[in-house]
């Protein structure tokens, strides 16, 4: 077989695998949309099981949900929370990640073990003490209160430490000769090189912030200050098992998240043209 033909073969195999996987991954999303346009009875019926809506596609469910909740406020709160959490997390994590990945200092091992231990503790135990802190700071029902537990991130620090460790050693030495101090070296040379790790941290921070349900529910008792996921949980509570309404609102809620991801990932893979491998 010629190299040309083999490459083609490889490509076809890759596409087949990708398409199958894509189909598997798409199922719940498709399910959300299909449920959203059903009637309530169809959505819970199992004995004749309906994949597609039986009594017509009820697109008006989306309009009903949109009208009955103030999505604009919910979007705004969510985006503000995501924005500040991403900025804070990237800032603190990139600094700490650089120190852990690149510098030698007394106490490094001990301090890094703190980072690891934080990730080991089930998150359920942090919530109430953090609530009491926010409450005593007077930050309930505010964006600052929403952002509060996301100011620092152990996960992100670890992620960026890995990113910095992966950079070649000689880079830094070359910069050292030019009389840069550590701060300048970090800011001007090292930080820009870990861009893709930073962007993936941004994506994850945004994602975790978006999915975080418990925290907004606790700190925002007021529907004008809460976020999408918590607002949705509230709808679930109110509508009980009205699945079409729930799913219609869930679909409306994840749209901004998908947009954020698409924007981010474009940045994220820009390097592909220069560094992409062949298979």
């Amino acid at each position, binding site marked *: 077989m010629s190299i040309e033909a083999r490459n083609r073969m490889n490509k076809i195999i890759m596409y087949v695998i990708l398409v199958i*996987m894509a189909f598997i991954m798409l199922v719940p*999303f498709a399910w959300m949309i299909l*449920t959203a346009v059903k009637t309530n009875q169809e959505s819970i019926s199992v004995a004749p099981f309906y994949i597609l809506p039986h009594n017509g596609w009820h697109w008006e469910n989306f309009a009903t949900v949109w009208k009955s909740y103030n999505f604009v406020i919910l979007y705004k709160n969510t985006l503000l929370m995501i924005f500040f959490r991403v900025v804070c997390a990237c800032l603190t994590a990139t600094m700490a990640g650089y120190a852990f990945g690149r510098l030698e*200092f007394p106490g490094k091992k001990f301090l890094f073990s703190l980072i690891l*231990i934080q990730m080991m*503790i089930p998150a359920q*135990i942090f919530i109430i003490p953090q609530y009491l802190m926010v409450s005593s700071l007077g930050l309930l029902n505010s964006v600052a209160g929403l952002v509060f537990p996301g100011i620092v991130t*152990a996960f992100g*620090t670890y992620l960026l430490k890995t990113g910095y460790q992966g950079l070649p050693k000689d880079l830094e030495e070359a910069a050292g000769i030019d009389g840069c101090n550590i701060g300048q070296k970090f800011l001007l040379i090292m930080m820009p090189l870990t861009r893709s790790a930073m962007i993936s941290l941004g994506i994850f921070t945004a994602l975790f912030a978006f999915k975080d349900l418990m925290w907004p529910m606790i700190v925002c008792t007021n529907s004008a200050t809460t976020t999408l996921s918590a607002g949705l949980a509230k709808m679930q509570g109110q509508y009980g098992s009205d699945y079409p309404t729930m799913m219609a609102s869930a679909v409306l809620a994840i749209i901004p998240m998908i947009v954020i991801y698409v924007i981010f990932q474009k940045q994220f893979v820009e390097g592909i043209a220069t560094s992409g491998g062949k298979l």
Partner: protein
Amino acid sequence: MSEKKKKGMTAAEKRTAYWAWAFVAPTIIGLIVLNFYPAINTVWQSLCKTGDFGRGNTFVGFANYAKVLSAGETWQSLWNTIKYALIEVPFGVVIALILAVFLNQKLKGTSVFRTIFFLPMVCAPAAVAMVWKWLYNQQFGLLNNIFHTNVAWISNPKIAWISIAIIGVWSVIGYNMVLFISGLQEIPGDYYEAASIDGANGVRQFLSITVPLLSPTTFFIVQTRLIGALTVFDLMFMVMDKTNLALQKTQSIVYLFYTYAFTNGNKGYGATLVMVLVVFIMIVTFIMQKAEKKFVYYN
């Protein structure tokens, strides 16, 4: 740090140390306030008997530990958690790695695929649970209908843990994939070009360039996913009802913690379970950090 050691450092080392401390300070201070202070509170609770119906807590020393460690339930749930991790971590990592390598090629439509693989992560948990519950439904579910079987996927204690772990694998693929793609971005393209000129084929390139150069990212993913899998919780009650016969054989240790600390109101006992789990993960992590030196390649 001792005074002696400080004197032993050169001026340059000292300067480095100052910078480094300044860099880690915000993160460490934040973690201490936000996480370690509550954690210490948990340690204290694990030494107390929770007062209920308005009585205060009483200090009981290690009585909770004795109870937790002698309960068969604890070990069963720890074993369930380990079994879950043994499926979720390897499969999640390998599948995501393959997909990430595919998507790092110059193929058409990669950005569409990347977005699709990301979708499960943003979907409403209720939708995910509904889909999987239906797939696994014994009478009307897709799986039994396709294979013409009559398997109780999530209520047979022998296989329920596998069914749960499959959902786990499915939900972490996108997460691992994003990290792998970002790791792949950092491998310089000329390595591959040099290898192509030498006539190395795709699989060879993958094994001799991608795997070693990606090993820091892989290690990171394995480490964080292992911790994530050992603290699994949400997945369990999303799919398992409390009347499910297989609950005993599938519930994770955090699930058990939740039952004691929340439903039964025995916070001291719950806190002790958390301590047992944390010690266990610390041991695993310690072993992994030793392995890191052997298997991970840093240039």
